[in-house]
């Protein structure tokens, strides 16, 4: 068997690889293709016979989603929560990661190690207590409640990512600036942060994406229309009695457009962050 495999010529191996890639590629595109085409089909066509391509194009589903289902409102809600969370988390994490990698103070080693543990705690353990605390604080169905819940997983993650980056950054320029009379804060602001922009961009994209794509906490923490997140609004298409495929597909495409755009624009940064074991999934 071994010898048999070893004797297969390189060209045959390349063909086998191409077939494997092709099959997996098709499996990736299959649901996405039908998601897009179905969003342009009339309801009657969706429920009747199978078709590869819309027999008649329509934008009804998109109009329906925007006019009848308050999707624009949910998008604005999600944007508010995602941007607030990302900005707060980046500031908090940059300060913490700088202190944990550059300053010397008692407790540093324990905290530096603790960051990784906290990052690894799965959300399912935190769901119920987090829900109770948000309710107790009177923050259910509010943006601060959603922001706090999202911060709880983003801060450890972002701090860990930034610590990893700062450790690879040479200390020499910083030390020179300190010798030249900069204070620690001046050195952080004028030297460390400008040098850390790539890592900050990567971290921001991941946090924004995580908030945008988060479903479970959004589901239990905000049920009213004024604060509902896009994920909850869309999943309701399926959960509720009105199970309508066309608007659901159109809504999904609208909901994933921002993250896909962000990903295409910043692919380089995302690939870099991937290696940091960055995303829970």
């Amino acid at each position, binding site marked *: 068997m*071994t010898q048999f495999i070893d004797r297969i010529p390189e060209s045959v191996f390349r063909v086998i690889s191409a077939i494997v890639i092709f099959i*997996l590629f098709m499996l990736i595109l299959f649901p996405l293709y039908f998601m897009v085409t179905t969003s342009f089909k009339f309801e009657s066509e969706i429920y009747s016979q199978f078709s590869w391509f819309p027999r008649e194009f329509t934008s009804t589903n998109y109009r329906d989603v925007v006019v009848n289902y308050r999707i624009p409102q949910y998008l604005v809600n999600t944007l508010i929560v995602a941007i607030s969370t990302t900005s707060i988390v980046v500031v908090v994490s940059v300060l913490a990661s700088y202190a944990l990698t550059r300053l010397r103070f008692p407790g540093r080693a324990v905290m530096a190690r603790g960051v990784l543990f906290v990052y690894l705690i799965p959300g399912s353990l935190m769901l119920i207590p987090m829900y109770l605390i948000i309710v107790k604080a009177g923050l259910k169905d509010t943006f601060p409640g959603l922001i706090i819940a999202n911060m709880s997983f983003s801060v450890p993650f972002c701090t860990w990512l930034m*610590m990893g980056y700062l450790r690879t950054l040479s200390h020499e320029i910083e030390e020179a600036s300190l*010798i030249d009379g900069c204070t620690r804060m001046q050195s952080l602001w004028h030297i460390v942060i400008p040098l850390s922009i790539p890592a900050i961009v990567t971290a921001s994209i991941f946090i924004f994406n995580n908030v945008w794509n988060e479903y479970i906490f959004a589901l239990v923490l905000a049920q009213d229309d004024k604060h509902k997140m896009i994920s909850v609004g869309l999943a309701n298409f399926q959960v509720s009695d009105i199970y309508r495929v066309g608007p659901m597909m159109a809504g999904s495409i609208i909901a994933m457009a921002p993250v896909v755009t962000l990903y295409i624009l910043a692919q380089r940064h995302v690939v870099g962050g991937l290696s940091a074991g960055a995303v829970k999934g």
Partner: protein
Amino acid sequence: MSQDTLTQPGVSVGSPPKQKKNKSLFAGDVRLGWLLVSPALLVVLGMVGYPFVEAIRISFTDRMVGRGPGRWVGLANYEYILGWPGFTDMVVRTVLITIAAVAIKTLVGLILATSLNMNFRGRDILRGVFMLPWILPTYIIVLVWRWIFDGQTGLLNQILMSFGLITENYPFLAKSGSAVSLLIFVMVWKGYPFYALTFLAGMQTISSELYDAAKVDGAGRLARFRYVTLPGLRQVMGVVILLSTIWTMNTLEIPMLLTGGGPSNATEVFPLLTYHLAMQNFRLGEGAALPILMLPVIGLLVLVVAGYMDREATA
């Protein structure tokens, strides 16, 4: 990107700083250090630490949603869960589904990484497409597959019908065998690209000289894979598999939106049961107790993976 970026090169968590001179530069570090760490510390203690302690406390009460703080009931919730006839089944089911999903993700990820590791045109574009399942929102992916597998209006039924392979709709998600398989399928679909891309990154750091040397020594294709590729990937694979095991085991969205635990509890895994106890039956005490019962397993995995990441970083 190199293999060791997975845990950050040169990282040594908590190791002493490399130079001890220039003491004067570090005067005032203690106060500033605590000052800068305090916001993050506040978040972690207040939003992770406190809820965690709170969860342990609630698990000893009969607290229900909207009924005040509840009474102290000692170990009653734990006894109830452990005595519940379906508990063992649920644990076994969770473990088996997790193992199956992680094993298939590893295998497919390895095969795809090996295939992508060859040089051909358009590889970067392909890599971009293969990242799609990983970047797209989980809930959207599940909603789409849920519709495809739907027993009445599902796409798969329509396709099979139009090719004349079936004459009447098959309820894929309403049969326990197919529901479990499809749950694993969706988990794999969502997860394997992350494996493939990190494995690929790992493979690309393996020196081609090692392969050349192996060839000179007469190693065939399989031997090179076995004795060069796999050892080179050991670290990356270890971290990815362990991390993914933790996250796969705790995935709530996929079973919740795909099958809702059905049919007849066939896909009711641990995080879903927690959710059902607390949010549907409003029994918060039991809902809090269940994750705590699973904590030894999850805690052990977290300890191992954290140790792995630390050790690799300092190595």
